[in-house]
């Protein structure tokens, strides 16, 4: 219940969502109206799952607008999302299916940049204690500057990042810089990854390990392949970190199925599709979807 208070949409917004990441935001301490500590302690990551199974919600930021993304995120958290993946739109999203490709195109048409996403994160962080992860392809982060990215992300109150096309082999400098700013690094584990690779991936992850349910791009699937359960089992040999399963989860049955063997389900394309199909009432549509996935459909009605 106390969470409901923290995520109140009525809280004043002191900053434009388009506000660039500047030094002035260091002072933007989160407004903790309750007893939660302001400083983040090591090992006390916000990347934790309060629910069983946990729910990680992905959205492409800037689709349909940064202001709408803000409402969607807060609504998703209130509906029970534990962690939000803030997708940075990219012109060439090779790991994504048509739904997220279209969302990226829409967000890019609005001119959404990594800088805008970080400003959005800072804004959202004022309103919620949910875990916030920047979800991006490598090039926007490189272009922004790796160190500058880490500084800005930490300052914005972001908890970590997942770079879709950055494998552990190429990630030494990234990991070192992220660690220096106490930011978590999350890497993908795939059904095709060998045990040897899974071990190294698990060691490189903080917060949780993101297991890809099956070979393929993002997007809703009819069924969750047996691949996923087998992969989670293999990952658990190497780590005690929670394991989230993503790629293809779009209905309650799949959510429950994943909850049977993993700690959290990552829902991406289904959310982005709900946003696409409900212009003007995106936040409500996403809350309804999350409530349905979690089997709380009746509660969702009153949450707006």
């Amino acid at each position, binding site marked *: 219940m106390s969470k409901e208070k923290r995520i109140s949409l009525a809280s004043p917004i002191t900053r434009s969502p388009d506000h660039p990441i500047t030094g002035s935001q260091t002072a933007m301490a989160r407004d903790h109206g309750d007893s939660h500590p302001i400083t983040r302690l090591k090992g006390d990551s916000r990347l934790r799952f309060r629910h069983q199974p946990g729910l990680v919600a992905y959205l492409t930021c800037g689709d349909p607008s940064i202001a709408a993304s803000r409402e969607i995120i807060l609504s998703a958290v209130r509906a029970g999302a534990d962690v939000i993946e803030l997708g940075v739109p*990219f*012109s*060439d*999203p*090779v*790991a*994504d*299916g048509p739904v997220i*490709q279209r969302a990226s*195109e829409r967000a*890019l048409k609005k001119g959404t*940049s*990594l*800088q805008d996403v970080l400003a959005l994160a800072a804004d959202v962080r004022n309103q919620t204690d949910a875990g916030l992860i920047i979800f991006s*392809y*490598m*090039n*926007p*982060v*490189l*272009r*922004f*500057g*790796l*160190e*500058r990215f880490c500084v800005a992300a930490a300052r914005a109150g972001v908890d970590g990042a997942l770079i*879709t*096309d*950055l*494998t552990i*082999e*190429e990630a*030494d*400098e990234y990991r070192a810089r992220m660690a220096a700013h106490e930011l978590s690094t999350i*890497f*993908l*584990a*795939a*059904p*095709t*990854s*060998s045990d040897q*690779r899974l071990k190294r*991936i698990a060691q490189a992850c903080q917060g949780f390990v993101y297991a*890809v349910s099956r*070979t*393929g*791009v993002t997007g809703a699937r009819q069924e969750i392949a047996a691949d996923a359960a087998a992969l989670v089992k293999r990952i658990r040999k190497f780590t005690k970190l929670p394991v989230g399963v993503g790629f293809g989860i779009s209905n309650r049955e799949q959510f429950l199925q994943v909850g049977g063997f993993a700690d959290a389900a990552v829902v991406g394309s289904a959310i982005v599709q709900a946003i696409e199909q409900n212009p003007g009432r995106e936040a409500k549509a996403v809350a309804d979807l999350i409530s349905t996935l979690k089997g709380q459909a009746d509660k969702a009605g009153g949450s707006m």
Partner: protein
Amino acid sequence: MGSTAKLKPAAGRFGAYGGRYVPETLMAALEELERQYGKARRDKRFRAEFERLLKEYAGRPTPLFFARRLTEKLGGARIYLKREDLLHTGAHKINNCIGQALLARRMGKQRIIAETGAGQHGVATATVCALFGFDCVVYMGAEDMRRQELNVFRMRLLGAEVRGVDSGSKTLKDAINEAMRDWVTNVRTTHYLLGSVLGAHPYPTMVRDFHSVIGREARAQILNAEDKLPTAIIACVGGGSNAIGIFHQFINDRRVKLIGVEAGGRSEKLGDHAARFRGGSPGVLQGTFSYVLQDSAGQIATTHSISAGLDYPSIGPEHAALADSGRAEYVAASDEEALEACVTLARIEGIIPALESSHAVAECIKRAPRMKKSDVVIVNISGRGDKDVGILRESLHIG
């Protein structure tokens, strides 16, 4: 770009460039490909089979032709043309396709996917798939399908399925995105026959090796004809496979100038060309770290070139390293210069070069008159112009 230059070297690096930037799902396939290729290149039977097919099927060696009339017209260096345009399917692309098809057979993969820009790599891929009995899917941008209609038909005639790509700029870059999405989905049964020295390790090295026969032949041929090494070698650079193929054998011959010619397009404005060394900066695109045409937020820029095969926002990572070290020089030729060069070579030597190769001819036409009569230039004619007659007819208004 301070921070980008500091990426730590890992597998498959050329200086700071190259590497592997792919979704984790593809890593197992790339590791397997690297392992299998490593074994194959040391295997005498694999090499013998590759060489036999290059000779008996593709038509190697290709001639090195002394262009007497072009030499006289320009009045400077002696000009030789490396005739890759005479190969089966009409371009150098077949070298790499034969190599990778042999490798796919070795790995037990029955399904081949590929991307194509101008259609030359798609045709070469469809050709080897017919030869080896593989299923073949070629991704091609919708805009390129329009520009290169003849090659679309050729691929279908050869039994390949051509899938049009409607996303982004509907050109080569978008075709690669779609091929990568197919590969990430079907990676267990499918080999991605990438057509240039691009993408994640081991592709830039492997594709270079399969094309290095161009330079080996050219080196022996020029020594035979002139009794000395050339002063300069000129090749067009899209991804850069024909260029690296002819350059590679000469990299240690420090006095041989290596000149890559990019697509200057219609202007120097971002979006109007594909000259990565003129307007690009280091970045990651489609698996590799190299020079990329991009905006200030790291979004990949659209490109333009009259030749679909050069119309790509990034460049092979080995070229990036050669540019940084100064071992190779990169220049650009505009659409107009390429068209003029195409007509010149057609009328003076009876050879219609592909619009891609015409960029190299254009640089030769600019450079040769300023060189000494004792200088020798080799221009790599990477492909023939038959596929471009539609565009040539639209652009030239000949009778």
